[in-house]
Protein backbone atom coordinates (compact mmCIF):
# COMPACT_ATOMS: atom_id res chain seq x y z
CA UNK A 1 0.00 0.00 0.00
CA UNK A 2 1.57 3.26 -1.03
CA UNK A 3 -1.46 5.53 -1.20
CA UNK A 4 0.06 8.09 1.13
CA UNK A 5 3.17 8.66 -0.92
CA UNK A 6 3.85 12.21 -2.06
CA UNK A 7 5.95 13.68 -4.87
CA UNK A 8 9.22 13.33 -2.97
CA UNK A 9 8.42 9.63 -2.56
CA UNK A 10 7.78 9.57 -6.28
CA UNK A 11 11.25 10.99 -6.96
CA UNK A 12 12.77 8.35 -4.70
CA UNK A 13 10.97 5.61 -6.63
CA UNK A 14 11.29 7.11 -10.11
CA UNK A 15 15.02 7.66 -9.91
CA UNK A 16 15.39 3.87 -9.79
CA UNK A 17 12.67 3.13 -12.33
CA UNK A 18 12.99 4.16 -15.94
CA UNK A 19 9.38 3.11 -16.57
CA UNK A 20 8.01 5.28 -13.79
CA UNK A 21 10.20 8.18 -14.82
CA UNK A 22 9.33 7.88 -18.50
CA UNK A 23 5.66 7.70 -17.62
CA UNK A 24 5.98 11.00 -15.82
CA UNK A 25 7.89 12.57 -18.70
CA UNK A 26 5.12 11.69 -21.17
CA UNK A 27 2.42 13.49 -19.21
CA UNK A 28 1.71 16.85 -20.80
CA UNK A 29 -1.26 18.26 -18.93
CA UNK A 30 -1.98 18.75 -15.22
CA UNK A 31 -5.06 16.57 -15.46
CA UNK A 32 -3.32 13.57 -17.05
CA UNK A 33 -0.42 13.98 -14.66
CA UNK A 34 -2.72 13.93 -11.65
CA UNK A 35 -4.38 10.80 -13.00
CA UNK A 36 -0.98 9.24 -13.60
CA UNK A 37 0.05 9.83 -10.02
CA UNK A 38 -3.23 8.50 -8.70
CA UNK A 39 -2.89 5.37 -10.83
CA UNK A 40 0.60 4.78 -9.53
CA UNK A 41 -0.42 5.34 -5.91
CA UNK A 42 0.94 8.82 -5.21
CA UNK A 43 -0.95 11.74 -3.77
CA UNK A 44 0.09 14.88 -5.62
CA UNK A 45 -2.22 17.90 -5.48
CA UNK A 46 -3.71 19.59 -8.53
CA UNK A 47 -1.67 22.69 -7.73
CA UNK A 48 1.54 20.69 -7.68
CA UNK A 49 0.63 18.98 -10.94
CA UNK A 50 0.07 22.37 -12.53
CA UNK A 51 3.35 23.58 -11.10
CA UNK A 52 5.21 20.58 -12.48
CA UNK A 53 3.76 20.91 -15.96
CA UNK A 54 4.51 24.63 -15.95
CA UNK A 55 8.07 23.90 -14.79
CA UNK A 56 8.55 21.45 -17.65
CA UNK A 57 7.72 24.24 -20.04
CA UNK A 58 9.80 26.83 -18.21
CA UNK A 59 12.85 24.60 -18.34
CA UNK A 60 12.51 24.37 -22.10
CA UNK A 61 11.82 20.70 -22.62
CA UNK A 62 10.27 21.38 -25.98
CA UNK A 63 13.29 23.25 -27.23
CA UNK A 64 15.66 20.63 -25.83
CA UNK A 65 17.95 23.32 -24.52
CA UNK A 66 20.19 23.06 -21.46
CA UNK A 67 19.20 25.60 -18.82
CA UNK A 68 22.01 27.92 -17.78
CA UNK A 69 23.96 27.17 -14.63
CA UNK A 70 22.59 28.53 -11.37
Amino acid at each position, binding site marked *: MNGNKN*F*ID*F*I*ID*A*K*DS*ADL*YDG*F*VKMSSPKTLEEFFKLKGYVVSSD*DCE*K*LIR*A*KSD*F*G*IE*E*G*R*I*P*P*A*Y
Partner: protein
Amino acid sequence: MASTDSSRRLSIEVTKRCNSSCIHCFAGASEKGSTEIAYEVLKNIIIDGADAGYRHLHLTGGEPLLHGDIFEVIDKALEKGYQTILLNTNGMLLNGHMCQKLAQYPELTISVSLEGSEALHDRFRGNGTYQRAIKGLETGLEAGLEIIIFTIVCKSLLPDLPRFADQLFTRFQGIKYLTLIRLIDSAPINSIFGKELLRPDDFLNLVRAISLLNLYGWPTTLLNDPLINLVARMLAISWIPESKELHQQGNLMVMADRSLSVSHTSDAYCGQYGSASIENVLSYDPYRQAVAPDKLICPACQYAQICHDNGLLRPVDGHALGLTDSYFCKAVLDLMAT
Protein backbone atom coordinates in the same frame (compact mmCIF):
# COMPACT_ATOMS: atom_id res chain seq x y z
CA MET B 1 46.75 40.86 -22.83
CA ALA B 2 43.83 40.20 -20.51
CA SER B 3 41.32 37.55 -21.56
CA THR B 4 37.80 38.57 -22.42
CA ASP B 5 36.20 35.33 -21.17
CA SER B 6 34.03 36.76 -18.43
CA SER B 7 33.03 33.45 -16.84
CA ARG B 8 36.46 32.08 -15.94
CA ARG B 9 37.39 31.86 -12.29
CA LEU B 10 40.58 32.27 -10.32
CA SER B 11 40.69 29.90 -7.34
CA ILE B 12 43.01 30.36 -4.41
CA GLU B 13 43.60 27.72 -1.78
CA VAL B 14 44.42 30.21 0.94
CA THR B 15 45.33 27.58 3.53
CA LYS B 16 45.66 23.85 4.06
CA ARG B 17 44.58 24.29 7.66
CA CYS B 18 41.17 23.00 8.57
CA ASN B 19 39.18 22.57 11.75
CA SER B 20 37.98 19.23 10.46
CA SER B 21 39.73 16.15 9.13
CA CYS B 22 37.29 14.80 6.58
CA ILE B 23 38.24 11.38 5.34
CA HIS B 24 37.01 12.17 1.81
CA CYS B 25 38.85 15.50 1.49
CA PHE B 26 40.27 15.77 -2.04
CA ALA B 27 42.24 18.85 -1.03
CA GLY B 28 44.35 16.93 1.46
CA ALA B 29 43.54 19.46 4.18
CA SER B 30 43.47 18.61 7.87
CA GLU B 31 43.75 19.98 11.38
CA LYS B 32 47.48 19.35 11.11
CA GLY B 33 47.81 21.31 7.87
CA SER B 34 50.15 24.26 8.15
CA THR B 35 50.76 25.43 4.60
CA GLU B 36 49.23 28.85 4.09
CA ILE B 37 49.63 31.77 1.73
CA ALA B 38 50.65 34.98 3.47
CA TYR B 39 48.53 38.07 2.86
CA GLU B 40 51.28 39.88 0.96
CA VAL B 41 51.38 37.03 -1.55
CA LEU B 42 47.60 36.73 -1.68
CA LYS B 43 47.40 40.42 -2.42
CA ASN B 44 49.79 40.00 -5.36
CA ILE B 45 47.85 37.03 -6.69
CA ILE B 46 44.62 39.01 -6.56
CA ILE B 47 46.16 42.00 -8.31
CA ASP B 48 47.83 39.76 -10.88
CA GLY B 49 44.56 37.94 -11.48
CA ALA B 50 42.65 41.17 -11.93
CA ASP B 51 45.26 42.36 -14.40
CA ALA B 52 44.79 39.09 -16.29
CA GLY B 53 41.08 39.83 -16.59
CA TYR B 54 39.62 37.66 -13.83
CA ARG B 55 36.38 38.96 -12.35
CA HIS B 56 35.34 35.88 -10.40
CA LEU B 57 37.31 34.72 -7.37
CA HIS B 58 37.03 31.44 -5.52
CA LEU B 59 38.50 31.22 -2.02
CA THR B 60 38.98 27.71 -0.76
CA GLY B 61 41.14 25.61 1.52
CA GLY B 62 41.38 23.97 3.97
CA GLU B 63 38.99 26.13 5.85
CA PRO B 64 39.46 29.63 4.42
CA LEU B 65 37.82 31.26 7.44
CA LEU B 66 40.79 30.09 9.49
CA HIS B 67 43.04 32.41 7.50
CA GLY B 68 43.73 35.39 9.72
CA ASP B 69 43.59 37.87 6.85
CA ILE B 70 40.58 36.55 4.99
CA PHE B 71 38.66 39.83 5.24
CA GLU B 72 41.64 41.77 3.95
CA VAL B 73 41.72 39.34 1.03
CA ILE B 74 38.04 39.97 0.28
CA ASP B 75 38.52 43.73 0.58
CA LYS B 76 41.46 43.67 -1.80
CA ALA B 77 39.57 41.54 -4.34
CA LEU B 78 36.63 43.92 -4.40
CA GLU B 79 38.95 46.90 -4.61
CA LYS B 80 40.56 45.33 -7.69
CA GLY B 81 37.24 44.83 -9.44
CA TYR B 82 36.27 41.20 -8.83
CA GLN B 83 32.52 40.99 -9.24
CA THR B 84 31.78 37.77 -7.40
CA ILE B 85 33.54 35.81 -4.70
CA LEU B 86 32.71 32.23 -3.79
CA LEU B 87 34.00 31.10 -0.41
CA ASN B 88 33.90 27.42 0.56
CA THR B 89 33.41 26.61 4.22
CA ASN B 90 32.38 23.69 6.38
CA GLY B 91 30.16 26.18 8.22
CA MET B 92 31.53 25.47 11.66
CA LEU B 93 33.03 28.94 12.10
CA LEU B 94 29.90 30.80 11.03
CA ASN B 95 29.12 32.37 14.40
CA GLY B 96 27.19 35.60 14.79
CA HIS B 97 30.22 37.87 14.66
CA MET B 98 31.69 36.15 11.61
CA CYS B 99 28.38 36.21 9.75
CA GLN B 100 27.78 39.88 10.46
CA LYS B 101 31.14 40.69 8.93
CA LEU B 102 30.60 38.44 5.91
CA ALA B 103 27.13 39.89 5.35
CA GLN B 104 28.70 43.25 4.56
CA TYR B 105 29.75 41.86 1.17
CA PRO B 106 26.86 41.43 -1.29
CA GLU B 107 29.32 40.08 -3.85
CA LEU B 108 30.03 37.09 -1.61
CA THR B 109 28.44 33.65 -1.91
CA ILE B 110 29.16 31.14 0.84
CA SER B 111 29.08 27.42 0.17
CA VAL B 112 28.40 25.33 3.27
CA SER B 113 29.14 21.62 3.12
CA LEU B 114 26.48 19.19 4.30
CA GLU B 115 26.71 15.49 3.55
CA GLY B 116 23.10 14.43 4.05
CA SER B 117 21.93 12.98 7.33
CA GLU B 118 23.69 13.69 10.60
CA ALA B 119 25.01 10.13 10.70
CA LEU B 120 26.42 10.31 7.18
CA HIS B 121 27.84 13.80 7.65
CA ASP B 122 29.59 12.86 10.88
CA ARG B 123 30.87 9.64 9.34
CA PHE B 124 32.62 11.68 6.65
CA ARG B 125 33.56 14.74 8.68
CA GLY B 126 33.86 13.67 12.30
CA ASN B 127 31.57 13.39 15.30
CA GLY B 128 29.63 16.53 16.14
CA THR B 129 30.44 18.33 12.91
CA TYR B 130 26.87 18.11 11.55
CA GLN B 131 25.34 20.02 14.43
CA ARG B 132 28.03 22.67 14.23
CA ALA B 133 27.51 23.05 10.47
CA ILE B 134 23.73 23.33 10.89
CA LYS B 135 24.19 25.97 13.58
CA GLY B 136 26.50 27.90 11.27
CA LEU B 137 24.05 27.58 8.39
CA GLU B 138 21.20 28.93 10.51
CA THR B 139 23.33 31.81 11.74
CA GLY B 140 24.47 32.65 8.24
CA LEU B 141 20.96 32.70 6.84
CA GLU B 142 19.74 34.85 9.74
CA ALA B 143 22.51 37.31 8.96
CA GLY B 144 21.39 37.48 5.33
CA LEU B 145 24.31 35.67 3.73
CA GLU B 146 23.84 34.24 0.25
CA ILE B 147 24.37 30.55 0.90
CA ILE B 148 24.53 27.52 -1.35
CA ILE B 149 24.99 23.96 -0.12
CA PHE B 150 27.74 21.65 -1.30
CA THR B 151 26.99 17.96 -0.86
CA ILE B 152 29.07 14.96 -1.83
CA VAL B 153 26.95 12.31 -3.52
CA CYS B 154 27.87 8.77 -2.57
CA LYS B 155 26.10 5.41 -2.53
CA SER B 156 24.80 5.93 0.98
CA LEU B 157 23.25 9.31 0.18
CA LEU B 158 21.63 8.45 -3.13
CA PRO B 159 18.50 6.66 -1.80
CA ASP B 160 17.81 9.54 0.58
CA LEU B 161 18.86 12.37 -1.70
CA PRO B 162 15.33 13.53 -2.64
CA ARG B 163 14.24 13.59 1.01
CA PHE B 164 17.47 15.31 2.05
CA ALA B 165 16.93 18.01 -0.58
CA ASP B 166 13.26 18.41 0.36
CA GLN B 167 14.03 18.79 4.05
CA LEU B 168 16.90 21.15 3.30
CA PHE B 169 14.89 23.55 1.16
CA THR B 170 11.85 23.33 3.43
CA ARG B 171 13.76 23.98 6.65
CA PHE B 172 16.25 26.54 5.30
CA GLN B 173 14.24 28.64 2.90
CA GLY B 174 17.03 31.12 2.19
CA ILE B 175 19.29 28.58 0.55
CA LYS B 176 19.95 29.60 -3.02
CA TYR B 177 20.61 26.16 -4.47
CA LEU B 178 22.03 22.72 -3.78
CA THR B 179 25.26 21.77 -5.52
CA LEU B 180 25.99 18.06 -5.62
CA ILE B 181 29.50 16.74 -6.11
CA ARG B 182 30.07 13.18 -7.23
CA LEU B 183 32.44 11.38 -4.88
CA ILE B 184 35.62 10.91 -6.85
CA ASP B 185 38.01 8.02 -6.86
CA SER B 186 41.14 9.58 -5.43
CA ALA B 187 43.51 7.15 -3.77
CA PRO B 188 42.58 7.73 -0.12
CA ILE B 189 38.89 7.55 -0.93
CA ASN B 190 39.39 4.39 -2.91
CA SER B 191 40.93 2.63 0.06
CA ILE B 192 38.32 3.79 2.56
CA PHE B 193 35.24 4.52 0.54
CA GLY B 194 35.49 2.32 -2.53
CA LYS B 195 31.99 1.01 -1.91
CA GLU B 196 30.64 4.55 -1.76
CA LEU B 197 31.54 5.49 -5.34
CA LEU B 198 28.59 5.82 -7.69
CA ARG B 199 28.40 3.20 -10.40
CA PRO B 200 27.03 3.94 -13.89
CA ASP B 201 23.51 2.83 -12.98
CA ASP B 202 23.65 5.05 -9.90
CA PHE B 203 24.56 7.95 -12.14
CA LEU B 204 21.42 7.47 -14.23
CA ASN B 205 19.39 7.37 -11.02
CA LEU B 206 21.09 10.59 -9.96
CA VAL B 207 20.19 12.28 -13.25
CA ARG B 208 16.53 11.37 -12.80
CA ALA B 209 16.51 12.57 -9.20
CA ILE B 210 18.14 15.90 -9.99
CA SER B 211 15.82 16.56 -12.91
CA LEU B 212 12.72 15.92 -10.81
CA LEU B 213 14.01 18.00 -7.91
CA ASN B 214 14.49 20.94 -10.26
CA LEU B 215 11.00 20.54 -11.66
CA TYR B 216 9.61 20.52 -8.13
CA GLY B 217 11.29 23.85 -7.44
CA TRP B 218 14.29 22.64 -5.44
CA PRO B 219 17.20 24.03 -7.51
CA THR B 220 19.83 21.35 -7.69
CA THR B 221 22.90 20.95 -9.83
CA LEU B 222 25.88 18.65 -10.21
CA LEU B 223 29.22 20.43 -9.98
CA ASN B 224 31.55 20.43 -12.99
CA ASP B 225 30.15 17.25 -14.50
CA PRO B 226 28.89 17.86 -18.06
CA LEU B 227 28.19 14.13 -18.40
CA ILE B 228 24.93 14.88 -16.63
CA ASN B 229 23.84 17.30 -19.36
CA LEU B 230 24.74 14.78 -22.02
CA VAL B 231 22.72 12.05 -20.30
CA ALA B 232 19.82 14.42 -19.77
CA ARG B 233 19.86 15.31 -23.44
CA MET B 234 19.90 11.64 -24.45
CA LEU B 235 16.93 11.08 -22.16
CA ALA B 236 15.22 13.98 -23.96
CA ILE B 237 14.92 15.96 -20.75
CA SER B 238 16.30 19.37 -20.07
CA TRP B 239 15.56 20.13 -16.48
CA ILE B 240 19.16 20.10 -15.33
CA PRO B 241 21.23 23.29 -15.40
CA GLU B 242 24.40 23.43 -17.39
CA SER B 243 27.36 21.85 -15.63
CA LYS B 244 30.63 22.97 -17.14
CA GLU B 245 33.94 21.14 -17.21
CA LEU B 246 36.11 22.07 -14.25
CA HIS B 247 39.22 21.96 -16.35
CA GLN B 248 38.21 24.59 -18.85
CA GLN B 249 40.25 27.27 -20.50
CA GLY B 250 40.77 30.17 -18.14
CA ASN B 251 40.11 28.43 -14.84
CA LEU B 252 43.24 28.51 -12.70
CA MET B 253 44.04 27.53 -9.15
CA VAL B 254 46.82 28.72 -6.88
CA MET B 255 47.43 26.03 -4.28
CA ALA B 256 48.47 26.78 -0.69
CA ASP B 257 52.05 25.81 -1.52
CA ARG B 258 51.86 28.37 -4.37
CA SER B 259 51.91 25.72 -7.06
CA LEU B 260 49.64 26.44 -10.01
CA SER B 261 47.13 23.98 -11.36
CA VAL B 262 43.63 23.85 -12.77
CA SER B 263 41.91 22.48 -9.69
CA HIS B 264 42.40 20.54 -6.47
CA THR B 265 41.97 17.30 -8.37
CA SER B 266 44.07 18.07 -11.41
CA ASP B 267 47.50 16.48 -11.64
CA ALA B 268 48.68 19.21 -14.00
CA TYR B 269 51.57 21.16 -12.55
CA CYS B 270 51.83 24.59 -14.13
CA GLY B 271 54.75 26.00 -12.15
CA GLN B 272 54.96 28.07 -8.97
CA TYR B 273 53.18 31.35 -8.49
CA GLY B 274 55.70 34.18 -8.58
CA SER B 275 57.92 32.83 -11.29
CA ALA B 276 55.63 34.21 -13.96
CA SER B 277 52.49 36.29 -14.21
CA ILE B 278 49.14 34.55 -14.19
CA GLU B 279 48.50 35.74 -17.72
CA ASN B 280 51.68 34.01 -18.86
CA VAL B 281 50.84 30.78 -17.03
CA LEU B 282 47.65 30.48 -19.06
CA SER B 283 49.73 30.16 -22.20
CA TYR B 284 52.17 27.55 -20.79
CA ASP B 285 52.08 24.15 -22.43
CA PRO B 286 51.26 22.21 -19.22
CA TYR B 287 48.28 24.46 -18.62
CA ARG B 288 47.08 24.37 -22.20
CA GLN B 289 47.34 20.59 -22.23
CA ALA B 290 45.41 20.34 -18.97
CA VAL B 291 42.44 22.24 -20.34
CA ALA B 292 42.56 21.00 -23.92
CA PRO B 293 40.13 18.37 -25.22
CA ASP B 294 41.51 14.86 -24.87
CA LYS B 295 43.29 13.53 -27.93
CA LEU B 296 44.28 10.08 -26.75
CA ILE B 297 41.16 8.30 -25.52
CA CYS B 298 38.12 10.16 -26.80
CA PRO B 299 38.81 10.13 -30.56
CA ALA B 300 38.51 6.33 -30.62
CA CYS B 301 35.22 6.31 -28.70
CA GLN B 302 31.90 6.02 -30.50
CA TYR B 303 30.48 8.77 -28.28
CA ALA B 304 33.22 11.31 -29.05
CA GLN B 305 31.08 13.64 -31.13
CA ILE B 306 28.07 13.75 -28.86
CA CYS B 307 30.35 14.26 -25.85
CA HIS B 308 32.14 17.10 -27.55
CA ASP B 309 28.85 18.67 -28.60
CA ASN B 310 27.73 18.65 -24.97
CA GLY B 311 30.88 20.06 -23.42
CA LEU B 312 32.39 16.80 -22.18
CA LEU B 313 35.94 17.18 -23.42
CA ARG B 314 37.79 14.51 -21.49
CA PRO B 315 37.13 10.91 -20.41
CA VAL B 316 35.79 10.47 -16.91
CA ASP B 317 37.95 8.00 -15.06
CA GLY B 318 36.27 4.96 -13.60
CA HIS B 319 39.33 2.93 -12.76
CA ALA B 320 38.48 2.54 -9.08
CA LEU B 321 35.15 0.97 -10.01
CA GLY B 322 36.87 -1.83 -11.88
CA LEU B 323 35.04 -0.99 -15.10
CA THR B 324 36.03 -3.01 -18.13
CA ASP B 325 37.60 -0.13 -19.99
CA SER B 326 38.08 2.10 -16.93
CA TYR B 327 36.05 4.99 -18.28
CA PHE B 328 33.01 5.96 -16.31
CA CYS B 329 31.55 8.14 -19.05
CA LYS B 330 31.56 5.36 -21.65
CA ALA B 331 30.08 2.89 -19.19
CA VAL B 332 27.22 5.31 -18.48
CA LEU B 333 26.57 5.89 -22.18
CA ASP B 334 26.79 2.16 -22.92
CA LEU B 335 24.24 1.55 -20.22
CA MET B 336 21.89 4.06 -21.82
CA ALA B 337 22.30 2.40 -25.20
CA THR B 338 21.13 -0.97 -23.88
